[in-house]
């Protein structure tokens, strides 16, 4: 029984981590209608910036971390300036394909700038787990979970309640309509990428704290995909719930099904969930329904 509760809580916290990464997808989608395939690479790039600031340059944590977030924001802005500002008004298809190009580009950039070696990521959160009775909880995931919930509700409030957020929501609805309403699509996309890069860096900090880091860590981007899909690409707070669901299912499946099947089902199961969602309810739990009149 105590094992079960352990799996449950750890699954839920890992799920919240996925939710944070998935929020990167959702934020970029919500403000620009672009599905960002390079999300995992953004996370790894953010991780390397933090590593560079804190471990390589030896800055103290309270200077290095904020600087890393600023650098990530600048990187997001750079991506938008170089690639997406030229594509405003073009088809969304081209923009999404550019993110596939970005995936290759950022991966190469990481290899050029930081090398393929495995680096040890600085310990941001203390390594000792939090122990309540017989339950062991990794501290980084616990703190990360709390941050994720706060960020999730904060962003949800921003996009649904404030004027600036609603403007971006209009961009996600339709670029041309937004343009004709006097909303700057370019600025919205720029903001989306800045926010996406910062969120990805935050995700990297929580995900990698005290672990090893190399360019292969970008797999987390794909692992977070089912979460974003279950919530629906437009729902920000919904991502939290979806993350909990996917995380708990994955945790339990890893614990109880893996020994039977012979491993690795835990990593595939989110994708099976994803396929089921796509077949049953492609818009996810909280996504906007689009009605096509024929």
């Amino acid at each position, binding site marked *: 029984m105590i094992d079960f509760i352990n799996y449950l809580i750890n699954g839920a916290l890992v799920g919240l981590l996925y939710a944070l990464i998935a929020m990167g997808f959702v934020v970029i989608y919500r403000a620009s209608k672009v599905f960002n395939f390079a999300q995992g690479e953004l996370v790894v790039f953010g991780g390397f910036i933090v590593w560079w600031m804190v471990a390589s340059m030896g800055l103290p944590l309270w200077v290095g971390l904020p600087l890393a977030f600023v650098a990530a924001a600048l990187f997001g802005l750079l991506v938008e300036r170089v690639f997406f500002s030229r594509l405003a008004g073009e088809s969304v298809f*081209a923009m999404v394909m550019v993110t596939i*190009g970005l995936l290759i580009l950022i991966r190469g950039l990481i290899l050029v700038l930081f090398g393929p070696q495995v680096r040890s990521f600085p310990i941001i959160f203390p390594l000792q787990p939090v122990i309540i009775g017989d339950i062991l909880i990794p501290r980084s995931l616990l703190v990360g979970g709390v941050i994720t919930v706060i960020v999730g509700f904060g962003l949800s409030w921003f996009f649904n309640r404030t004027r600036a957020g609603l403007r971006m929501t209009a961009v996600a609805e339709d670029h041309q309509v937004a343009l004709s309403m006097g909303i700057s699509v370019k600025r919205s996309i720029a903001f989306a990428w800045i926010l996406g890069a910062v969120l990805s860096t935050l995700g990297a900090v929580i995900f990698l704290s005290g672990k090893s880091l190399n360019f292969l860590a970008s797999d987390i981007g794909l692992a977070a995909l089912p979460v974003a899909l279950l919530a629906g690409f437009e729902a920000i707070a919904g991502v939290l719930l979806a993350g909990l669901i996917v995380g708990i299912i994955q945790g339990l499946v890893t614990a109880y099904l893996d020994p039977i099947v012979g491993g690795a089902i835990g990593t595939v199961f989110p994708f099976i969930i*994803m396929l089921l969602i*796509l077949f049953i309810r492609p818009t996810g739990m909280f996504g906007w329904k689009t009605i096509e009149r024929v």
Partner: protein
Amino acid sequence: MDPAGVFATSFERDQALIRTRGQWIALALFLIALLVLPHVLGPRLVAISTNMLIMAVVVIGLQINMGYAGQINLGQAAFMGVGAYATGALAIKFNLPFWLSIPLGGCAAALFGFIFGLSAVRIKGFYLALTTIAAQTLFHFLILNLPQSWFGGSNGLTLQPAQIFGFSFVSDTSIYYLCLAVTVAMVFGAYGIVRSRHGRAFVAVCDDDVASGLMGINVVRTKATAFLIGAFYAGIGGALWAYYVRFVAVDQFTLFHSIWFIAMVIVGGLGSITGALIGVFVIKAIQESFVTLGPSIVAQFPSLGGDVVFALMNVFLGGVIAAFLIFEPRGLMHRWNILKRSYRLWPFPY
């Protein structure tokens, strides 16, 4: 547009692939060049050419699926892998000759792709692209977790060389000719498909699926067919790969390979079979020249280290993809068509 003086007087003439005597000569010269190529070039270049031929089959499949029918497919490498594994298993378990196992490998891949294409019943656009990512992950999981006696699991499959009438395709040259024959057949097949009723249905669905549905095209069936054909091509490519490398392993068919295939389609030009061939040639040539020049660059600047070359290749090609999408979304083929038009019209502006 056609050169001056060439007029189509019948539907057959209008649909003809080769319209002028010049094109006949160019095609014949190109094929002769391909035939004598292994006798002129060194073994490494022949190996690269074989590689290009195999890639060409896979990318043409992706072109039909993505360029013509407009269905983004991020699982082409998985479909290729299914073909390779099916061919390998058939050749090892049942001792099937290659002229049976290659088409059957294609069919296996087509079935796998068709299943994912069927999801078009419910979903479209980027959601459909996501199911193909799931295909990629599922493929890896299945191969690694199915009983080892089926597909070799993590050990991979090792094949005997293809044999016919006591002749076995062991040498680089012989396998090159095998790949060339299959690729030429597949390329002509592709031209046939895209000119046919199905090809026109693909283009219509790509342009607007609601409008094409109103015109009486079965949209879902068209999308599923596109996946079927695309995956069949991938499977044939995978089967050739299995006989070429004679070793099949999962890490030859990753999501990254799929992305490279997409890059080839984009650089070559969406919606053109010739464009797919050009894309394969250009991207592969750039990759290989990086690999060839790499050691000498590293020798010049030892501080860079050997891995930098591979990394720079990624940066360069990622940049190339983005640049093409920004500045020339219709690819090199479109540039070539503009050039052709201008010299045919010369000295008149239009």
